[in-house]
């Protein structure tokens, strides 16, 4: 009977070494809210679990002049309680705050949400819209990559053997910038997103958008950055025409599937709706900032 081993390294280098040197499959245990479910159902059958939570600094949120650094194993509930993060990145925080129940948020982490690579992961569109990066530690050292470089398809990442995400970084915010994340679920809680939309904008004093990023979730194998949707916003105020162009651009970018959570038609239609609504919130928030 295969024995499942457990390791709890106390430094990043030790974690890298354990992962790189593992015989058979090794899985990183961060929050565990995806891993344990997959373990229980037999969907994954690793030989080794590497619990990274004992590494100092891997849990915590640091604010400095350059922005924010969030330890990879920080439970999402902590993000929702961090006033500074909420003020600067309300969209990222509300996205993390939508991951499962309070119980799930007490454990679930951004690293797990990202590396589990579900197309419907809630935090990912918001992080990409925010131009977040993640620090990857591996046998070759550390590298910092945009969040969108990690997931390559459902359940697949670009991480090599021995690599793990150790930190997320959010850049400093220019004035009159804000983000927002909305998702559609059939109930009011506890569902995987059928569609997710993240919008991050910067406005100039008159309310015209000078910079935008629009990212859709659950409508393609990974979260997708939609440059055409951003282009619909840049140089414009959020008027009816802009919203219509945004809606259309969002719909055109969708490559969804029909599954037990939604149909192609539904996801496409709602992607446009959510993009409009998220843009509305982001613009309103940005307009309130000096």
């Amino acid at each position: 009977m295969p024995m499942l081993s457990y390791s709890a390294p106390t430094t990043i280098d030790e974690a890298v070494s354990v992962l790189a040197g593992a015989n058979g499959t090794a899985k990183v245990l961060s929050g565990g809210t995806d891993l344990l479910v997959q373990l229980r159902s037999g969907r994954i059958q690793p030989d080794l679990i590497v619990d990274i939570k004992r590494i100092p600094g891997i849990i915590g949120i640091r604010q400095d002049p350059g922005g924010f650094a969030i330890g990879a194993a920080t439970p999402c509930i902590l993000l929702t309680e961090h006033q500074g993060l909420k003020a600067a990145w309300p969209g990222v925080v509300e996205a993390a705050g939508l991951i499962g129940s309070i119980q799930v948020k007490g454990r679930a982490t951004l690293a797990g949400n990202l590396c589990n690579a579900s197309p419907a992961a809630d935090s990912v569109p918001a992080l990409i819209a925010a131009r977040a990066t993640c620090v990857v530690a591996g046998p070759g050292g550390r590298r910092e990559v945009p969040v969108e470089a990690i997931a390559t398809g459902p359940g697949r990442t670009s991480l090599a053997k021995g690599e793990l995400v150790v930190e997320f970084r959010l850049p400093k915010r220019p004035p009159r910038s804000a983000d927002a994340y909305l998702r559609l679920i059939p109930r009011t809680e506890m569902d995987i997103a059928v569609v997710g939309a993240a919008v991050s904008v910067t406005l100039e004093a008159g309310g015209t958008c000078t910079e935008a990023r629009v990212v859709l979730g659950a409508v393609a194998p990974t979260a997708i950055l939609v440059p055409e949707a951003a282009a619909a916003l840049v140089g414009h105020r959020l008027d009816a025409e802009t919203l219509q162009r945004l809606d259309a651009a969002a719909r055109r970018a969708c490559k969804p599937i029909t599954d037990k959570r939604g149909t192609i038609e539904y996801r496409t239609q709602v992607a446009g709706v959510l993009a409009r609504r998220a843009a509305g919130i982001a613009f309103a928030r940005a307009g309130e900032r000096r």
Partner: protein
Amino acid sequence: MATMGTQGQFKVVGTRPVRPDGVEKVTGRAAFGADLSLPGMLVGKVKRSPHAHARIVSIDVEKARALPGVKAVVTAADFPEIASEEAFVGEGPMNFRDLSCNCMARGKVLYEGHAVAAVAATSSAIADAALDLIEVVYEPLPHVIDVEAAMAPGAPLLHDDLITQGVDPAPRTPSNVAKRVHFSLGDVEAGFRAAQVVLERRYTTKPVHQAYIEPHACVASAGADGQCQIWCSSQGQFMVRAYCAKLLGLPISSIRVTPAEIGGGFGGKTLVYLEPLALALSKQSGRPVKMVMTREEVFRATGPTSGAVVEVKIGATRDGKITGAQAVLKYQAGAFPGSPVQPGCMAAFAMYDLDNVSVTGYDVVCNRPKVAAYRAPGAPIASFAVESCLDELARTLGLDPIALREKNAAKDGTRAVYGPIWKDIGYVETLQAAKKHAHYAAPLGPNQGRGVASGFWFNIGGESTAEVHINEDGTAVVVSGNPDIGGSRASMAMMAAEVLGIPVERVRPIVGDTSSIGYSFLTGGSRVTFATGMAVVQAAQEVVGELKRRAALILDVSPEAIEWRDGAAVPSDADPGRFAPLPLAAIALKAGRTGGPISAKASINAQGAGPGFATHLCDVEVDPETGQVKILRYTAIQDVGRAIHPSYVEGQIQGGVAQGIGWALNEEYIYDANGRLENPGFLDYRVPVASDLPMIEAVMVEVPNPRHPFGVRGVGEVPIVPPMAAVANAIHAATGVRLADLPMSPPRVLAAITRATT
């Protein structure tokens, strides 16, 4: 027996004491099916079919048997082959042969998840490994799940000996239609000819699961002397005993079943799945065996209710009088016959006084788990269709939906389509209360709408036994044989306390095991407070009679000089003041000297269960861009007969409404092209969560049932009958769009809105 007292005269009945099992439950001490451990206990697990329909070519268990730690392995070969025989043990139609084959597949697997073997081992991990070592060779067969596809000629056949009953002449070839039922009154074609408006509509529903939070669990222990003990959570310990005895070929007296606390049943635990397997494994291994289903197993292998197609035709004159009503109900039975299509047919128009009505039902087998009862089995589906159609009729005629129902309401003297003449029913009272309720007049905003729907359930009586014992200190114990799934134990104590005249805190209610209390039919059919309550009252009244006789001895007066009041023997009105009241405790103290222990037993087959009626009001708000539906406000008005413990009656109403809302909006079984269930978990089988619902106002109208000493009417099932139509009607009011297919999930609502606006 005569109804006792009137409103306001009761000391205990109608109050809200804390339930006797409450502290146990809020401290985590209450013992549910999976909470028991016995020395030497093994873990049992089940191997299940990955195919929706297949012939079992061979099963080889030798490698599993040889694995260290495995102590027993069973397949169908370890169970007696049972001939076809109707069982009158549980709720709904059941055949012993079918139940046996459902518990352990014989020859064929008929649904994904169908049990083919079971093992018992010294640990969970070893049991899992043993399952992987069992080699089953299947010959997959074409499968069919949709009810109409299963009825169509040329459909894959589940049972080659299934000849449709209820058709004359009987068909010569087998099919998937197990039974046809038909009820009618008058001449429905004439009724349609007399109508000025005729609506003909088709409705569909998907299978939904009872979704109790506690998975099935049991511990079985077979002794070397053949004496067997089973500890399980179920809706009927006597049902478990009877089914296990039959399925294993054992005498009933050799099995003792102790009911654990049950974590929800709603009809889904009125039969057995694990208990016969655990018992067989225990016999083979000589050790106790615990079996607990995973959530996935609960969804894949236990009975959700039917998915269905219902075609309704209603004709009326312009003033709203229904002149003809017809319905054809096609219900999935799952792998074996026994859908609730018959009660569905009977309940469909039960709220209405109709001269011309025809209802036909088809019980259709298909490759999904065998249907189990789910709260008012059959009626919610039928009412979704009929109450939606009536709503459309009201709008077509420009009539208020409550007024339409009042015009056609069943009253005392109305004959129901399935035969009985109503007496002492409270349907009209619920309509009147709905009309007067503040909810009905409350203003609505944009994208909001209000729906009305009514419901009915028969409620049953049946066999129950109860005992009342007086302890030496004057406290009492009430023993009955019905698992408590909704607070019935509190009501038993309250009724006994009322009759005995003592505070309810001095009465301890116990649910006995099968060897400690006489036979009781299971907990279901909204019967316990009615039937078991009746037995409790009868036993308590006999105890009072005995207390009076003992008092006469103690006081040295004749028994005619004594009455029982407020828990004491008092002088009868003919001779007041003759002696000071002699309280129960004082009589109990002298029990030994006056004749021995004071107790009584009542074994009854309770008749006269009163049917229940309800009218519900539902307000929704629909997001026209996403199809999401929010329930804003819900009022459920129900004739409850007499609420023994009002909080628990309210609780039944609120719980039933919540299940109905889930059924209406998001719950459904989703199958892939291979007949495999895609959503066997609470993530994608979407029951309502706390943030999905508003407060649910339960309005209890009391039209006492004169055939129960306290006027009790069953209450637990009616509440799930109206919500689906109430929600559908509200969505129509909010959007102008009529949804006839459940569930009304956001994609379906949005698609309907989009179709309507393009």
